[in-house]
């Protein structure tokens, strides 16, 4: 038993390949044989993975040392590396045509997420501008939240809530995208570019589009990658000052 654990955790990345392979094998089997392809295998695999994440804490299942390699396989380095590789299947003309809509969607996405988050936080009883801005920033992504919070000096409790808000967004985007894709006409590169800019949460956009149609991934990822940076730029500065003007 001890030897098994030693070998598996020492070769964490390799073990992670095996774990993910088994999850996907099972998910695709269930999708094909039990659900008759009504829910894509990718979506099931992602939901199973999210459930597994419950067994850990901050780093999900990777908190269990045996599964430590999952953090490397699912970390930002390999994620971004593989996201960039999807550009091989992207058509630059289509990106260019969606350029304007993509840029507008980025600004609209950050703006509406922040202020909608603020309005909801007011409705739920928050009153001070710093907490409101931090929660609003968390409604952008789970990185914009803590970056804004620490820049403005928010309490650690509020920062935790802003991170949680961002993670909820990832999960809702991941599970919701394949369900709602048809009714919002998310079936072509143009709307995928807009989708990436509006939702902006790289992990959620990436996972949601993968479960909907892997061909759309590069288009959504392209705009989503600018979102967090734009949010970190706007939320603690212009948006916070605009919010303070409203409060007085």
């Amino acid at each position, binding site marked *: 038993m001890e030897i098994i654990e030693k070998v598996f955790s020492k070769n964490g990345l390799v073990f992670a390949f095996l774990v993910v392979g088994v999850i*996907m094998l099972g998910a695709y089997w269930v999708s094909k044989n039990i659900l008759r392809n009504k829910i894509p295998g990718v979506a099931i695999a992602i939901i199973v993975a*999210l459930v597994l994440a419950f067994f*850990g804490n901050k780093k999900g299942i990777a908190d269990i040392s045996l599964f430590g390699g999952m953090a490397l396989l699912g970390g930002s380095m390999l994620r971004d590396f593989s996201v960039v590789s999807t550009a091989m299947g992207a058509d630059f003309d289509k990106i260019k045509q969606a350029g304007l*809509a993509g840029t507008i969607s980025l600004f609209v996405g950050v703006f509406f997420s922040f202020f909608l988050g603020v309005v909801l936080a007011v409705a739920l009883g928050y009153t001070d501008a710093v907490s409101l801005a931090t929660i609003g920033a968390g409604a952008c992504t789970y990185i914009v939240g803590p*970056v804004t919070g620490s820049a403005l000096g928010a309490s650690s409790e509020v920062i935790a809530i802003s991170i949680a808000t961002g993670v909820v*967004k990832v999960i809702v985007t991941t599970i919701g995208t394949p369900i709602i894709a048809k009714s919002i006409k998310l079936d072509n590169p143009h709307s995928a570019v807009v989708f990436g800019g509006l939702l902006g949460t790289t992990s959620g956009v990436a996972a949601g589009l993968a479960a909907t149609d892997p061909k759309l991934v590069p288009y959504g*990822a392209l705009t989503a990658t600018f979102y967090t940076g734009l949010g970190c730029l706007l939320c603690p500065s212009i948006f916070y000052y605009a919010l303070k003007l409203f409060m007085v």
Partner: protein
Amino acid sequence: MTIYGVALLAFCFLVGKLIGNALGVSIGVNGDVGGVGFAMILLIFSNGYLKKKGWLAAPTENGILFWTSMYIPIVVAMSATQNVKAALSGGPVAIVVGVVVSVVGFLLVPLISKIGKNDYEHN
């Protein structure tokens, strides 16, 4: 050789990240602004250029396509390493804000997609 493709991907990735981080510093955000996006554009252009020149052999291309095919497994691993507990224990604020913002985001997609869509269809 396969490694040529992987190396080309690594080159685009790193240059893109460098641009993203330099942009981040220059606008006062300590982080990566659009690094993945710059890397993707770089890869699209080098792919087109090398193909035109006939320098992109099949094994080279496979070095990149392998990583494309690893994308979904990586997303599954990423999902398994999310802080799901915090998302649910953050209380009603986190859940309400997270859910409403995502759903409104979905609903805005068809609206903003209309921009530039007409010349797209004409072409």
